């Protein structure tokens, strides 16, 4: 198994929003999607996924409805709302600025000062 990275505090919400922005997903699907895109580098605690989903739903960022899964099981599908899309854009921009800044700081060599 490839080396995996534990999630940073507060990033799970952003990952979920991104995952469901690519198309409606059920909870387990969200898990798979994130692992797949991150090439198994990000590992999500299965137990903390659902509270996060409910939190986002209560905040009105995603909505859910019952549908049928690939292997004909009843599953709850989550989809991004308009508010969720706005939040995703904001968070993405913020995250980019933040990681660029972090990279700058961490890459700094004595010559840069």
């Amino acid at each position: 198994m490839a080396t995996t990275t534990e999630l940073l505090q507060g990033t799970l919400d952003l990952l979920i929003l991104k995952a469901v922005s690519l198309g409606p997903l059920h909870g387990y699907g969200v898990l798979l999607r994130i692992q797949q895109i991150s090439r198994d580098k990000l590992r999500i605690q299965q137990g903390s996924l659902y509270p996060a989903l409910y939190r986002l739903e209560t905040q009105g960022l995603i909505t859910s409805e019952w549908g049928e899964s690939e292997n004909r099981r009843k599953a709850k599908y989550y989809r991004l709302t308009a508010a969720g899309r706005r939040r995703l854009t904001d968070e993405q921009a913020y995250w980019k600025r933040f990681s660029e800044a972090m990279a700058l700081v961490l890459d700094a060599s004595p010559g840069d000062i």
Partner: protein
Amino acid sequence: MDAELRFHLDARTDDLVASGLAPAEARRRAIEEFGDPLRWKEQGREVRGVGWIDGIKADLRYGLRMMMQSPGFAAAAILSMAIGIGANTAIFSLVNSVLLKPLPVHDPESLILLAVSSDQSGLGSSFPYPFYLDLREANEALSGVLASASMGPSLEAGGPPEQIDGELVSGNYFEVLGVQPHLGRLFTDNDERAGVNRVAVISYGYWHRRFGGDPHVIGRSIRLNRLPVTIIGVSPPSFHGIEPGALPSVRVPITLEAEMHGSASRLDSAGNWWLQIMGRLQPGITRAQAADALDRRYDSFRAQFPGQKDSPERLEVLDGSGGRPTIRKRFSLALVILTVLVAIVLGLVCLNVGNLMLARSTTRQREMSLRLALGAGRLRIVRQLLVETLILATAGGALGLLLSGWCVDVMARLADVPSDIRIPTDFRVLGFATLVTFLTGMLCGLAPAWSSAKVDLVGALKIGTSQVTGRRSIARSALVAGQIALSLALLIGAGLFARTLFNLRHAGFGFQAEQLALLSMNPILAGYSRENVRGFYADVLERVSALPTVESAAFGVMPLLDGNMWGSGLVLDNGQGDDRPGPTRNAVGPGFFRTTGLPLKEGRDFTAADTATGEPVAIVNETFVRRYLGEGPALGRRIGPGGSRGPARHTIVGVTRDSKIANVRDAEIAFWYIPYAQLTNVSQLTLHVRARHSPEAALRDVKAAIASVDSGVTVFRTGTMRQQIEDQVQVERLLATLAAVFAALAVALASLGLYGVVSYTTSARTREIGVRMALGATPRAILRMIFGQYVPAIVAGAAAGVAVASVAARRLQPLLYDLQPFDAPTLLAAATIVGAVTTFAAILPARRAARINPALTLQ
């Protein structure tokens, strides 16, 4: 959430199987990866803001566990709450069915009731038929108007005739009310046209009692006052009529009135006020708007018949949703008082259970402190305790609801409620019970919860510190005083009602009530003519007087103490008179005064010589003399009925003592008597019988004697004078009995409360008492010390109770009889009882404390 969890695990298992694991192993791994689903669920709920459900669930589990641990406490609390809630629910059931429940008809809220009022005679509720017809014609305010009048016909259905309650109704009666038949059909307008149909609708209750619920009763012919009528329908079981409490068994169209009574028709007379009128408002019309419109109609009606100068001035439009308010008026004050009394009982229950909880919360102080120290919020502790009391209250409420059903049956029997009338446990009663249960739980739990959450952490966690803090013992003393005050107030109230009932039963009636019996009959209804009815009465009197069980007997038009008065105005020989309200009178046979035991002060009784052709005579009572005749001899003066009935022809030949006439509460009624032989028309008379031994035996013989004269004549309203008096004190009896029960409960609760408090505090002071005794205190001194601690509370409670009772009793005045609200003997007796019982309750545990063995407690 469960479904989502199941899907997740299934999907993960499938993937793991696909990657080569055995299904069972895959499942195990999937579950393991997921972690604790319970924690996940809790987190999920907290995120959604429903986390408190888990908390309450935990509280419920914990509360139930605590209850199991102390079943004695739980049983005591539940039982006392059940008694409190049950009694309140039972009284509310009565209030609901008498005061709140609307008539069981279609849309009762749009019904109105017409009444008239005048300055002289107050509110009246009768109207003449022509006015009713007037209202019925095109009407902008009402979509329907009905009329009815009660009657008491004798009914024959293939057996001996029996006297029943009936009602004359307009053809649209059922239609306006929106009542559907149970069987057959109900009346239509067509039935009201004179001479068309002689039809009758019987009530469901009567159908079952008399015809055994036979479906073939439709089309059967019965005889009402000998007039053959055909039964066309049965009214539904829930419907009794427009007057709650009255249960007419048969209804016939109003147009049969004259034929049934063998008299001239009242239908054309504008001066005969005999019909009750109810209407249904047009949609969108308010009662006030209708009142305007109807008032105009009434004015033009009065203008149309100017001869009616006595007709009341104003028309009143009243709320008709509850029907005619006869029963309401009779019982409303008593029910309000009972509601207050029973609420006090519940208050006592709350104080008591609260006290128990408080005592328990002291023993649980360490537990609470521990929870607080471990980081539980104070609100969380309060919630826990409230949940615990609510569990108790819910159990108490459920038990109370069962109890209330039984109480209602007992009360219905006490109040002589006919079996046709159901006192339902409807949604209002259930709602009330739920509300009371919740309030009880909150009230019982609030005080202990509050004080528990305020514990001093450091002090309480130390083992062995004294648990009785000063503030709590003050709170407990206040609770004790409050309980004593409330129970004493209740007992004083019960005492006042009991004395009122006694006074009414044993009032100086003026006549001899014992061994007196009454029977009414009306031979006219059995086909007798005006001429031969007198012969019938003479025969009956002769046979009855000869019976060995009968001391003497006499007829009278108005039965004694049956609630009705006959007012006919008065003219005097000096030309003066009194028409409103005027004296009331009776027409009686020879020997009436001897039979009833009403003593003559001067002059003579009527005799057989006072006939229609003899000199018109009269006997008056003392109040009559005082009010109308003034000084000078009364005998020899002449009087007569008022109105246009001619001169004062009756010579006064006797003066009687004052007596009760129509009601046990009568006082100073001006009254006069004439011989019934000198009435122009004689129809219904009541035989007053003085029995030689038992009145019941005499009644049996008299009935047989009447039947031997003519078995076709119905004898009705038979009973002893004692029964008659009991009927009159129905409300007072209900009030006195229930108030006594509630007061007994209250005193028991208060003493239990005091007993509990004293035994709890003494057990908490066991060590201290042991020390005192070791240092030389005598058991007597210990007893005095412990008991003395509660003397101030008992005295203060008693004083407050007397104060509350004497203020509240002024409100009771209208229900009391021959009694002042501040009745010293009642106060004294009640205070003595409460004092004795509570002292006993306090001394029992105090004595136990005084017998403590110091050597044992100090080890």
